């Protein structure tokens, strides 16, 4: 803080006090959160583990990993599934979205089918997929793929069908041919919409992999949660949840950085 030699007016003083309160409130809210946690743990002892219990369980988990895979190993297993699914969903989703968003006739033929399929939540496909393909690695990736594919397509389509006429006019004036119009104008101008789709697909994919693993897997964070639930190990459930939350947040940050690198023009001034 700068040293003030001027005396503050009453209003300024009030404003100044408010600023301090605003800065303190977040700390207060964290304290409340931890307080509630401690309270919940002390009242219903068996049902909710205290922070220390969770920490001890974490140390135990490091010593005695479940299925001989450490916590990190489980996270990586889940991430591997998610990343394979993303790679397929992104490339095919963007291609499909461009095709149906850019070509009106293609859109008319394929969109109704796509919308019908999209109306079904990704998790609802799990029974059908397991009956067809079993419970191996491939089917799990397929479920995640469905979850990640939909938002990518929807956003890419929206971006491709809302291109500003102005930019296309520039293309006409400079005699751009069909491919140039598509690759130099249409697709770049839809990139931020596409990225919005990718961001949604990351959070939805991460959610789906978790659910898929909870419904049957031998490794992964979803498996850890189910294991905790089945053995009444609430601390393990909480550890997994914290882990899932952290990884989810981390993925979101990575996406934001990636967008900044690939689309530098969207960065704020």
């Amino acid at each position: 803080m700068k040293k003030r030699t001027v005396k503050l007016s009453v209003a300024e003083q009030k404003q100044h006090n408010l600023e301090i309160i605003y800065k303190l409130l977040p700390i207060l809210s964290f304290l409340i959160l931890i307080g509630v946690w401690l309270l919940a743990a002390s009242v219903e002892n068996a049902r909710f583990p205290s922070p220390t219990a969770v920490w001890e369980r974490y140390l135990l988990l490091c010593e005695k990993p479940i299925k001989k895979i450490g916590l990190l190993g489980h996270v990586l297993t889940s991430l591997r599934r998610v990343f394979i699914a993303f790679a397929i969903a992104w490339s095919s989703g963007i291609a499909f979205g461009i095709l149906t968003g850019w070509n009106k006739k293609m859109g008319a033929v394929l969109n109704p089918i796509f919308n019908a399929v999209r109306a079904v939540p990704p998790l609802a496909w799990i029974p059908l997929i397991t009956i067809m393909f079993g419970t191996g690695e491939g089917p799990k990736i397929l479920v995640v793929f469905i979850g990640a594919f939909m938002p990518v397509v929807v956003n890419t389509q929206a971006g491709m069908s809302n291109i500003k006429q102005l930019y296309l006019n520039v293309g006409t004036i400079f005699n751009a041919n069909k491919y140039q119009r598509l690759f130099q104008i249409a697709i770049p101008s839809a990139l931020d919409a596409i990225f919005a789709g990718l961001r949604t697909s990351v959070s939805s994919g991460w959610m789906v992999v978790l659910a898929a693993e909870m419904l049957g897997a031998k490794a992964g964070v979803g498996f850890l949660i189910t294991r905790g639930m089945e053995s009444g190990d609430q601390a393990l459930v909480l550890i997994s949840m914290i882990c899932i939350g952290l990884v989810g947040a981390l993925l979101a940050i990575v996406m934001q950085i990636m967008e900044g690198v690939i689309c530098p023009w969207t960065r704020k001034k």
Partner: protein
Amino acid sequence: MNGKVKESGLGLDVEEFKRKKQKNAYMMTMLSVVGILSFLLLWQISVSMEWVNQKFLASPMQVLNLFLVKLTDASPDGNTLGMNVLASLQVSLTGFTLAVCIGVPLGLLMGWYRGFDSLIRPIFEVVRPIPPVSWIPLIIVWLGIGLQAKAFIVFFSAFVPCVINSYTGIRQTVPVLINVAKTCGASNFTIFWKIGIPSSMTMVFTGIKVALGNAWSTLVAAEMLAASAGLGYMILMGRQFARPDIIILGITVIGAIGMLFSSLLNIAESKVLGWKKV
């Protein structure tokens, strides 16, 4: 009108223009119908020609048959279709309504009052990245597998988008409007009520739409993990009894209700936000 065309020497014909436009719209609809029909046909043929094993996939006709049967028949999962639909609707609408009633006001208040924001935001940000599905084990321990437990999970998934969108919406209130109100001597609360809330309604509606989608898909997960009735439970049972027709019927009904929901919301939106349309 005709005279005008002749006088200007333009070859523009209103009737022909309209006809062309209509023809174009008609062709697009036809293309859509052809798309859907050929999809169904391909599906039907691939099952009845046994390109795909009948153990894995049921044909559209079989599913339609089952639909009629399942209206009154409770086997194999113990509920008729209507009971399953009602169970699912009850859970999801309870959770969704709660989420809207709590989430939207919370988001609006957070967006408008800074003190409120700095108190609630940190908690919200900590809880937000945890997918609703992962709460299921804890909730089951606390609340069992009844309506409450599932409604809570659904609530959670719908709550987050309601808050975020309301928050962003009210944050985007045009400063000029606020200043106009201020110069007219309105109090902060009046401005919040008369200007902030109306101008954030578009975003709020987007949030509610996302929330409904989330609620519906989380419901399926919740019912698959912990339930004794509902559409999610029905498809899970279909899996356990190796009845692809039941699974597909369940999926279709889930999808149809989801579509119905979103079109109802779209109608509601155009009613409420009529002034937005030019």
